[in-house]
């Protein structure tokens, strides 16, 4: 059974995205195939050189970099949203697979979960 966790909200505004990340890590810990998709405002998770010190938080970039270590199989990002928010490809994390069609990606997974 394959699961796609979808994050469509910008980081830092609420804990929903971090808790969605916990879900994907949990699946991976139980050896269940899981992947992440960032779309819409959610692609802002993928910015490099984030600095959350001013709001007293750890950067989500750090959380996200643990994904491959935990066994999360793939990190996808909506191409259109990346072009809109981060036209400079150097400003986004490496090893992200851009997807042209979210609809097509979603149909490839048994179970799709949006961040609450």
């Amino acid at each position, binding site marked *: *059974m394959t*699961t796609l966790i979808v994050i*469509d*909200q910008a980081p830092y505004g609420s*804990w*929903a995205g971090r*808790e969605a990340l*916990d*879900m994907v890590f*949990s*699946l991976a810990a*139980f050896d*269940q195939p899981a992947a992440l998709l960032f779309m819409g405002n959610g692609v802002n998770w993928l910015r490099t050189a984030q600095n959350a010190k001013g709001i007293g938080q750890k950067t989500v970039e750090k959380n996200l970099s643990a994904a491959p270590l935990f066994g999360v199989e793939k990190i996808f990002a909506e191409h259109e949203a990346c072009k809109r928010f981060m036209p400079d490809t150097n400003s986004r994390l490496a090893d992200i697979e851009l997807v042209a069609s979210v609809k097509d990606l979603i149909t490839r997974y048994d*179970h799709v*979960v*949006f961040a*609450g």
Partner: protein
Amino acid sequence: MSTKLSYTLVITGAPWASQAPQTALAFARAAVSAGHRLDRVFLYGEGVHLASSLCAPPSDEPHWPQQWSDFLSDNQIPGVACVASALRRGLVDEREQNRYQLPAHNLRSPFEIAGLGEWVDGTLKSDRVLYFHGSA
């Protein structure tokens, strides 16, 4: 004869801040009365507030935590609040109270506190997993 399915319900919206617990309860009642099985109700994120024993709404307003705990008890359905979500938001059972040396515990019966493994188990065993979110 229609096919009977098993469900895990995941509630991530808090009572009064969202309609998620109410909508989920309406679904749960309909599913059970149609002969389907609810394997588990899993509270995650803001949804854990549903398991608080300290909510006391005015008597002429719906009491979502009470309605949910009555439904779970009557139908012997496990209700689980995610431990990490619960601890962040001040929802603890006696064990967590002792562990973190907190002044009180407030987990409403029959809810239990457990890890995300319970949700993973639901994704593996239930025919369907449905999510009831608050506002995005």
